[in-house]
């Protein structure tokens, strides 16, 4: 459906995007990830026709997306990271405006505005100004404004920034409903658990280049560790700390050990290796205050690809 091919963009000497390519299939949700300054926003801006690429192209169902009155834009919806709403314009008027930009008018526009307000649960606040809304309500209206023209592809740039868990959940319900309707989504976020919940394909960008482009399951398989075991010891005086870490690292199936006081973070090649590790600790005479196992997270994949160095 969407084909991003060899996109490049430079600002002076700085290459913000360097040959980015990926595809979005119909009904697919793609999580677009990257650290700050990786080139995500520039890529999204080029996909939406806000910035002209130096090289490469964006096509939607074979039609090129360009700046200006490109017909392909009619099938795209953008939910910007900012609350891009007129705060002093009633919610329904905001929606009518953004609907009219896509050619909707009259009864059809009014009907559609009411439908999307209902979809995001704001029907009873139609005549109120966004300046009187909570952060979560504004975020929902921000999404609604991108849905007026019934786009086939919805691009969401960090749509849940600064909202409480209830609003986040409500937004996810809306997005999952859209996904169920067969719409394609591109979702950028720094909240990895959100992307894990929603995306069925992940694209990770850093330094303007695509580092990974695969379904989540395939990305997990690429990692040397598949599971994690967190242990909190009740005592630390059985074995010296350095010896304990070295001994654990030498056990079969253990990929790495990090110690922080009485807490141990043990990376495993598979969840089946957790039981022998716990048994070994018991045999050494350690008492466990708490333990938990977890599957490797998307964040681990992200950090393994982009590193742990601060970007800001």
């Amino acid at each position, binding site marked *: 459906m969407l084909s991003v091919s060899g996109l490049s963009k430079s600002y002076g000497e700085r290459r913000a995007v360097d040959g980015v390519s990926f595809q979005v299939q119909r009904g697919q949700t793609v999580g677009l990830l990257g650290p700050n300054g990786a080139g995500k926003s520039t890529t999204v801006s080029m996909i939406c026709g806000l910035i002209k690429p130096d090289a490469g192209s964006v096509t939607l169902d074979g039609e090129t997306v360009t700046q200006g009155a490109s017909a392909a*834009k009619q099938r795209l919806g953008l939910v910007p990271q*900012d609350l*891009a709403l007129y705060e002093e314009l009633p919610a329904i008027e905001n929606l009518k405006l953004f609907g009219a*930009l896509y050619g909707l008018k009259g009864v059809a526009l009014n009907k559609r505005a009411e439908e999307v307000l209902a979809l995001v649960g704001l029907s009873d606040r139609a005549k109120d100004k966004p300046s009187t809304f909570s952060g979560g309500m504004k975020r929902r209206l921000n999404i609604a404004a991108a849905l007026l023209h019934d786009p086939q592809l919805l691009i969401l740039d960090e749509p849940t920034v600064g909202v409480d868990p209830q609003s986040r959940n409500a937004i996810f319900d809306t997005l999952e409903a859209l996904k169920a309707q067969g719409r394609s989504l591109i979702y950028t976020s720094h909240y990895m658990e959100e992307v894990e919940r929603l995306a069925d394909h992940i694209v990770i960008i850093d330094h303007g280049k695509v580092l990974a482009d695969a379904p989540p399951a395939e990305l997990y398989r690429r990692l040397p560790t598949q599971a994690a075991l967190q242990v909190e010891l009740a005592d630390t005086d059985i074995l010296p700390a350095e010896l304990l870490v070295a001994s654990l690292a030498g056990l079969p199936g253990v990929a790495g050990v990090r110690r922080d006081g009485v807490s141990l973070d043990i990376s495993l090649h598979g969840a089946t290796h957790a039981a022998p590790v716990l048994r070994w600790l018991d045999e050494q005479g350690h008492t466990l205050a708490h333990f938990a196992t977890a599957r490797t997270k998307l964040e681990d994949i992200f950090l393994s690809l982009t590193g742990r160095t601060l970007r800001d």
Partner: protein
Amino acid sequence: MTAIIAMIRKDLILYLNDKRALMLNLLMPIVLAAFFGSLFGGSGSGNNSKIEIGLVQQDSSVIGRKVGDSLKADANLSVKEMSQQEAQDKVRAGKLMVAVVIPSGFGDAAGQSLFQSGSKPELPVYYDPSQSTVLAMVKGLLTQHVMQGVTGEVMGGSATGAKFTDDSLKRLEASPASEDKEALVGLLGSLKKFQEREAAKPAKESSGGGGLSVPFTTKDEALSSGPKYNGYAHAFAGMGVQFILFMGIDVGIGILLARRMGIWNRLLAAPITMSQVLLSRALSGAMIAAGLMVAIFFAAMLMFKVEVTNVVGFALVVVAFALMTASFGLLIAAFGKTPEAARGLAVFATLILVMLGGAWVPTFVFPTWMQQLTVVVPTRWAVDGLDAMTWRGLGIDVALQTAGVQLAFAAVFGALAIWRFRVQAR
């Protein structure tokens, strides 16, 4: 077209919902224009304001009293008698622009010195140094009243006049012989006979000793093609232009805020061009500007009897000014980096524009070089155009000229703005 209409509609709703902006753009120019209009002569129906002066009357002679009474009777002056100390204190404090002292013995000394050279009696005049123009006007009027008072007394049939003539003749006779002496003795002899004849007449037949007076009067005719001059018309034009330009700044700041808030990107993500977005903002800004100007002049017509003498011409000038204002707003948005920085700079630029454009005081009071310089200031054409279509009562040709120049400025501003926006979008 649907998109452009929707964006214009949005701007109009937002503007009308912003009661504070509406108050600032509509009420403030009316209040300030009412004030400035009264300074510029109001609606022209009332009397001109009098110059208030102080009079220290120390001379009780006939001439001294005549000069004092004559000053009090002058229609251009409002004279208050006071002590010398009070006069000095009030002038020093800025509560009085000018005070005239008629010192003791002034009348006699002035009468004596009419036909002889040598030292003249002095009239102390105290004045506020910031009011030198008023000093010149008062001195002119004082000259007239003193001459009239002194010569009236000398040439009339009064005993004082006869005594001055006798004294002058005695001094002349004691002086060395010359041709001038003979001529002056002859003149004073004739004057003495005239005085004796006047003195012999019954009081009602006497000429009354009018003395020397200014040998002309002026017939003042205010010339304009329009109705009677109305100072409010210019004041409303000036203040209207100023505050509507402030509204134009808000047009630009609104775009900068939309960019900061991400609304700009949301608009441009739709299948519309940047030119359409800018055009809609310019049109909505122009509609608001034109509506404000019409409302401001409507108030001027209702409250201060300002007349629009050429409705079509007025409409042309207003529409051209409205478009110029809107494109000025786009220019601010195009070259402004942040809303805060752009607002400060734009307000400064606007104040310079309205000052040079004659919005505060008419351009004809400017020095000639500045009047020539302000031809390149768009607000000058707006104010001149509005003046022409109101109290000057000029024709459609002037409206076309002033509107045309404003439209040219609008085109230049708009083209620069679009160019800049396109460069930024690359």
